[in-house]
Structure formats: structure tokens, C-alpha cells
């Protein structure tokens, strides 16, 4: 359902490796209505104007993390960003920053995935319980310590925001470190000492200079900047106190 005469210009950074040497901007005029998301705008382009435009999407409701892209130079989820925020001006849509462009708005995510796998993003029980022993119990206060960090939907907007990741992709990065923190702070988990090796490295928390843009763009208010920088404290304590507490480090 669109207002008949209103249109908005969406300029997409195209890149088709089989025909383009470099990315090139291509403009489309899309019918505008107040309730349309940028994702819907892209879907209109693909359905009615140019079927060759490639982009990722899935849930349309800001929970799957698939549709991250740069909208007027800001990392956003296209399903959670609305054309009305830009109308009548034009939108420039580009693939998520700091990642290699595979095609059009699709980026290579392998680096993020392998880093995520590397932090052991699952609970390794501190005190394993058998099925017969029943559930792992946790108070609301204990859950509060990690809950916000568990909201991460792996959308990688924080990586697009982080200039340190853009300058050096060896940096573990905000999202992965926030998830690392999520597991370390979970009272059921016992693998903190293991994960500290990642934290303590140059490419761990020490790659961060607290630009803070990651927390600004996070669609789920995870606050990765807080996760990374709290771990600078943990890493520092671990560094100086390791000689007093040789086994497992001093943190917590």
C-alpha cells in the first residue's frame, strides 16, 4: 500500500565481481509510504525494478541479525530502519563496513564466525550436574550480571562501527568480546580462565581504544564497549596478580 505519487531515491553500492572492477553506485526510485522499512525498499527494488540486487535478510523484525548494512554511512539493520527517517532526502545503502564485499550488500562473515567459535560461546559448567541432579539454579541477581550481553544477535553492526577492527581485522572485536563476557559472567560457567587467554592478547581487549561507537549502534543495547572495557580491568588484574594466584588467574 503506497501513496501514489511519493517516491524516495535509494542509491545502492553495487558490486558484481563478474562484471565490476570496483563497486559502483546505482540509483533507484522507490514508492514511499510512512511504514516502509529500508529492507522493504530493497525488496521493492528486487521485485519490481532490478532483480539482480543481492542482500541478506530473514526475520524482518530485528532478531536474526542478517540485514546489517550501512545506511547513509551508519551501520543499521535495514528491517529496523525506516524510509521516513530520510524522506524526502535520498538514502545511500552500502555493504556493512570493514568486511570484504562478496556481492552488492553481501559481505564475507567468516572472520566473525571463526572468532565467535574461538571463544567457546557455550556454558562449560563450573560444577557439572547430571540429569538426575536437576537444573542449574541461578538467582535473578546472578542472571542480571550477564543478561544484557546475552541479547547479542550476531548482526555485526558493532564491527562495522569499530574503526580498530577496520584498521586491523586481527582484533577480536566488540561483539565476540561481549559474548565472551556473557559466558564469563554466567554463574553456571567455569571456563573463565580459558577465555582469559583471548582477552589478554594484543588482539583481545587491548585492541580497543574505547571509541564507543559499537555500543551506540547496537540494535539490542548489548553495550559491547562496556564488556570490552570491563575486561581491560580483568586483564590488568590478571596481569599483575598472576604471580600471587598462579592457578586460574585473579579475576572474580
Amino acid at each position, binding site marked *: 500500500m503506497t501513496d501514489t505519487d511519493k517516491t524516495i531515491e535509494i542509491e545502492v553500492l553495487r*558490486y558484481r*565481481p*563478474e562484471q565490476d572492477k*570496483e*563497486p559502483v553506485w546505482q540509483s533507484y526510485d522507490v514508492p514511499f509510504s510512512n511504514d516502509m522499512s529500508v529492507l522493504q525498499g530493497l525488496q521493492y527494488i528486487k521485485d519490481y525494478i532490478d532483480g539482480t540486487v543481492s542482500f541478506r535478510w530473514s526475520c524482518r523484525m530485528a532478531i536474526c541479525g542478517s540485514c546489517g548494512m550501512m545506511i547513509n*554511512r*551508519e551501520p543499521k539493520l535495514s528491517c529496523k530502519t525506516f524510509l521516513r527517517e530520510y524522506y524526502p532526502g535520498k538514502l545511500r545503502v552500502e555493504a556493512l*563496513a570493514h568486511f*570484504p*564485499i*562478496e556481492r552488492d550488500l553481501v559481505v*564475507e562473515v567468516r572472520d566473525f564466525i571463526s572468532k565467535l567459535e574461538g571463544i567457546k560461546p557455550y556454558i562449560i559448567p563450573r560444577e557439572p550436574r547430571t540429569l538426575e541432579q536437576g537444573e542449574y539454579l541461578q538467582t535473578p*541477581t546472578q542472571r*542480571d*550480571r550477564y543478561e544484557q550481553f546475552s541479547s547479542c544477535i550476531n548482526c555485526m553492526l558493532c564491527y562495522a562501527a569499530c*574503526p580498530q577492527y*577496520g*584498521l586491523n581485522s586481527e582484533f577480536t572485536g566488540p561483539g565476540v568480546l561481549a559474548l565472551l563476557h556473557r559466558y564469563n559472567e554466567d554463574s553456571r560457567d567455569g571456563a573463565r580462565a580459558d577465555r582469559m587467554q583471548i582477552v589478554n592478547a594484543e588482539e583481545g581487549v587491548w585492541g580497543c*581504544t*574505547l*571509541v*564507543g*561507537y559499537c*555500543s*551506540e549502534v547496537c540494535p539490542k543495547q548489548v*553495550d559491547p*564497549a*562496556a564488556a570490552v*572495557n*570491563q575486561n*581491560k*580491568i580483568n586483564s590488568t588484574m590478571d596481569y599483575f596478580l598472576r604471580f600471587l594466584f598462579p592457578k586460574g588467574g585473579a579475576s572474580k
Partner: protein
Amino acid sequence: MNTRKQYVRPMDGWWLKNPFYVRYMIRESTSVFVGIYAFVLLAGLLSLASGEAAYNDWMAAMTNPLVILFHVVALAAAIYHAITWFAVAPKVMPPLLTGKKRVSDKTITIFHYVIAIVLYLVMLGIAWKV
């Protein structure tokens, strides 16, 4: 046939492309002026150790208009540093709990401002009372 060829975008001029990054670079640049000021103080200390005549020369040099201009900039830099420092301080601290409730980031920042302003007034008071 493999037609894949990933494109890596350059990072040149990255910080000019977003106002958030510009503010970050300004924040980082405050360290240059603050660092130079530390050397101004060091020069003062050196003159202090060299006797009254040398010290008074340093005091006179501090009245040079260009030197005063530098200090205006240095003061602005130190204040901008303080503002940005207090804004991010909550991110470096583990969650603080009062009873069951968590102290908000905003509260922590305001607390920093209160302490800073009290400290500034005390120091100014000491200087003025003399």
C-alpha cells in the same frame, strides 16, 4: 567457473566520514595539548630549581600572548578530556549494585562531575585565599 572476487574497501580518511569519529579524534587530540602543558610545567619546575631569577623569567614568559593563547586551547582540551572521560567512565567499571538495583551509567557520570566540581572549587579557593 569461479567468478568470486571479494572487494576490500580502503580505510583512508575513515574518521572524516562520520561525526562520531570526528569527535573521537578530537578527544584523542586533547592529549597533544595536555602533553605540551606537562612540559610547560616541567620547564617551570626546572626554572624553580635554578633560582629566583630563572623562575621569574619563566613567569614572564607565561605572559607572552601566544603562550596565553596556547593555555586557552590547553584548558579547552583538558575540559573536553574531562567531559569525555566522565562519559565513558561507567563503561570501565563493573556493575555497581545498591541493594538489588544497578547504578545507572548516567548516575556514575554525574557523580564524577560532582567530585570534579567540588575539587575544582576547593583548589580555586585555596589559590584565591592566598
